[in-house]
């Protein structure tokens, strides 16, 4: 699973992406638990960050698969 970080999320974790090799399919809740264990500095941003899976915003009950590209989307501000 490839995980991408943008803007203030990238600043909080200190890198643009990480790879989780050999992980199992997981719920979004499990994903967050594992991610916050690895990057506790993300905790304050969790409530404002949306998850995208393969370029589309996820629904709450979605399952994330090992081959997915997951992106953490902090509040956007284009234009």
């Amino acid at each position: 699973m490839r995980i991408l970080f943008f803007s203030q999320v990238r600043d909080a974790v200190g890198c643009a992406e990480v790879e989780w090799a050999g992980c199992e399919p997981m719920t979004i809740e499990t994903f967050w638990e594992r991610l916050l264990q690895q990057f506790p500095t993300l905790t304050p941003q969790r409530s404002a960050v949306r998850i995208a899976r393969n370029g589309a915003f996820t629904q709450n009950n979605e399952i994330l698969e090992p081959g997915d590209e997951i992106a953490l989307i902090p509040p956007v501000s284009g234009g």
Partner: protein
Amino acid sequence: MRITLELTAHAIARPDPAGSLAKGQIGAWVEFAGVVRGLENGTPIAALEYEAYDTMALRVMREILEGLATRLACESAWVIHRIGVVPVGETAIWIGVGAAHRETALALVAEFMNRLKQDVPIWKHRALTDADLGVSSP
């Protein structure tokens, strides 16, 4: 609706819309340019640095435009968003919309901008001062 989308690291030159206008079907051509202001939250700045999740940004912009087009009948929409460092006074986003009537073209531009600011993964990552850009004060 014909949709043209671009993300660019270069200054946006206003496109010539002639090629995207279906002759005889367009009664209104509406353009909008979003320009970087010299103040960000009350503080003078020299530039804004934008970043994007490129593939998703293009996909979401297309989905938004296709959705809006189901109730706002427009012939064409052209969106260019600049990424990277955009100096004050330069264009960060340019939109051109062609439609049979002005009401739909104006509404599409307005609604698209609202949706862009909610759902398109593009960020003003940081504000830059003259010092950040290596410009010395007089």
